[in-house]
C-alpha cells in the first residue's frame, strides 16, 4: 500500500510540477504572488474572474489553456487588464494568492512590456503611430517616446516607444492596441523580460558619488589622449590621420 501510494504520489508530484510551466503569453492577475507561491495559495475558486468587470480574467481550462487548470490568467492581446482603481480581483481573492497589500494598481507587476520587434514597429520605421504610447495608462512614465535622428530619411526624427520597467504594470493595453497584425510590443512575464545585475557588480560612478571622491586614494588623473589639434597625442601630433579623406581637402582640416 505504501509503495502504491509512493507511485501515486510521484505521479501527482509530476503533474503538479508540469503544471508550473506558465506560458509566456499567460499573465496572472494584479498582485499575484510569484508563480511557485501562487500555485500553493490559489484554490481555483474563480472569485477574481467573477468580479473582473471587463471579463479580462479567465480560469484555465483543462487541456485548452496553458496555466495550471482552474487558475486565473489573462492574455493581453485578447483582453488586457483595465487597471481598475479598486482592484476588485484582489479584493475578491479569499486566500491572498492575489496579495491584498497591493492597494495602488499603478504598483502592479503583472509583467513588463517589451518592444520586441523594432524592425516592424511603425515608430521605429520613422512613422508617427504612437498608439502604444497614447493608450498606456501610465503615459509618459511607463512608456516614453525617445527622439533620435532618422538616418533613412536624413531629416526626420524617430520617436522610439521606450518602456520603463519600474513604472510598467504589465496591464497589456499597449500589446492589445498595437496596430500591427502581430503586436510589436508585448507584455512578457518579468522572468523573461528583465535581466538582473549580478550581486557583486558595482557601478563605479554610483560608488564614487556615494563616496564623494574616488574610492582609491592617490589616483593620478592622467591626461586623456584625444585626437586633434591641441592635444598631447604623441603618436599622431595634431591628431589621427583620418581613414577617409574627402577629395579636395587637406589632412588635418
Amino acid at each position: 500500500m505504501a509503495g502504491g501510494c509512493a507511485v501515486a504520489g510521484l505521479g501527482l508530484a509530476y503533474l503538479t510540477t508540469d503544471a508550473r510551466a506558465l506560458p509566456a503569453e499567460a499573465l496572472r492577475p494584479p498582485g499575484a504572488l510569484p508563480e511557485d507561491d501562487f500555485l500553493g495559495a490559489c484554490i481555483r475558486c474563480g472569485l477574481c474572474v467573477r468580479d473582473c468587470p471587463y471579463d479580462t480574467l479567465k480560469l484555465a481550462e483543462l487541456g485548452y489553456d496553458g496555466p495550471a487548470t482552474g487558475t486565473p490568467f489573462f492574455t493581453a492581446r485578447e483582453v488586457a487588464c483595465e487597471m481598475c482603481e479598486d482592484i476588485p480581483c484582489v479584493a475578491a481573492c479569499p486566500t491572498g494568492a492575489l496579495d491584498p497589500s497591493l492597494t495602488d494598481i499603478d504598483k502592479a507587476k503583472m509583467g513588463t512590456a517589451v518592444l520586441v520587434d523594432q524592425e516592424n514597429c511603425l515608430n521605429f520605421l520613422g512613422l508617427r503611430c504612437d498608439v502604444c504610447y497614447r493608450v498606456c495608462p501610465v503615459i509618459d512614465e511607463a512608456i516614453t517616446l525617445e527622439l533620435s535622428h532618422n538616418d533613412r530619411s536624413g531629416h526626420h526624427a524617430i520617436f522610439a516607444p521606450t518602456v520603463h520597467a519600474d513604472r510598467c504594470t504589465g496591464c497589456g493595453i499597449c500589446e492589445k492596441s498595437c496596430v500591427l497584425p502581430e503586436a510589436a510590443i508585448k507584455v512578457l512575464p518579468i522572468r523573461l523580460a528583465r535581466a538582473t545585475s549580478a550581486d557583486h557588480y558595482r557601478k563605479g560612478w554610483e560608488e564614487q558619488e556615494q563616496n564623494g571622491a574616488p574610492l582609491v586614494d592617490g589616483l593620478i588623473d592622467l591626461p586623456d589622449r584625444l585626437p586633434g589639434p591641441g592635444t598631447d597625442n604623441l603618436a599622431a601630433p595634431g591628431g589621427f590621420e583620418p581613414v577617409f579623406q574627402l577629395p579636395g581637402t587637406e589632412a588635418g582640416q
Partner: protein
Amino acid sequence: MSAKTRLPTGQEAIAVKGWLGAHKWLLARRASQVFFLAIFLVGPWLGWRIVDGTLAGSRTLKVLPLTDPFIALQGILAGHWPELTALVGALIVLVAYALIGGRMYCSWVCPINPVTDAAHWLHAKFDIPKGWQPKRHTRLWLLGTVLVVSGLTGTVAWEILNPITMVHRGLVFGMGAAWGIVVAVFLFDLFVSRRGWCGHLCPVGAFYGLLGQGSLLRVSASKRAACDDCMDCFAVCPEMQVITPALRGKGDETPLILSPDCTNCGRCIDVCSVDVFTFTHRFDRRIDDVTQPAKPHVAEKAA
C-alpha cells in the same frame, strides 16, 4: 438468507410504500444536488449573483465566505497561510459538516455523485463483475499522499486531478477537457471497480469522512428486529460495510450507523419495506420493539 433476497432490489418497498415512498430520500438527494449546482449556475447563466465561485471557494450573497477545508489544508501545507476570508470560510464548512456528517457532502452536494451513481446503476443492470476492490482504507492512504505531495511540491496538489472541483468549475466557468475526467471516473466505476471512486479512492471523501467522525445526524436501524433479510439495504448502500454492525447488532448493541463512511444518503431508509432504518441523532440509541417480528430466527431466539 430469505427468499426475498432473490427479489429485485426495492421491489417490495415499492409494493408496500409506493414508488414515491420508496424513493423519497433519493429524490430529495437529487434535488439537493441540483440545488447546489443551480445556485452556482444562475450567476453566470441568468445574472442572479446568489453564490459566486465554485465548491473550492465561494461567496454567498456577497457576504458569506465558504472554503473547501481540504483544499485550504493543502494550501497551508504548501506553505501559504490563507487570508482570514478563506480561513473563516473553511471553519464554517468544517463545523457544519462535523455536525451533520462529513460525507453528506458526498451524497448531497458533490457533482460527481450522480456520475458514479449512474455508473453503479448500469453496473447493477448489466450485472458486471465487481472488479478491482481496493481495501477500504486505500482512500486514507491516498489522502495522506495528497497532503504529503502538497507539502513537498508547494502546490494544492489534488486540484490538478480533483474531478469534483474540475467538473463543478467546468460547469460554472467553462469545461475544457474536464469532461474527460468525468468520463474516466464513470468508466472506472463501471468497468474497473464497482463503487470504486467514491467508495475506495476519493481522498476528498476520505477527508470529509474523518471530519464527520462524531457527527450528530445518523441513520439508526432502530427497528432491526423487523428485518426480513431481504438484503436490499446492502444492495443499495454505497458503503455497505457500515450497515452490518447496526443492523446485525445483538441485544442492546447500538442500532446507530456510526461509521464515518456512511454518507447519510438515506437509500437504506427508502428501500426497506419494513422501515427498519430512520434518520436520528447519535444519542438516540432507542431500539424499537417489534411485536410481530417478521424474522423467523428472531422469533426463535425470543422463544
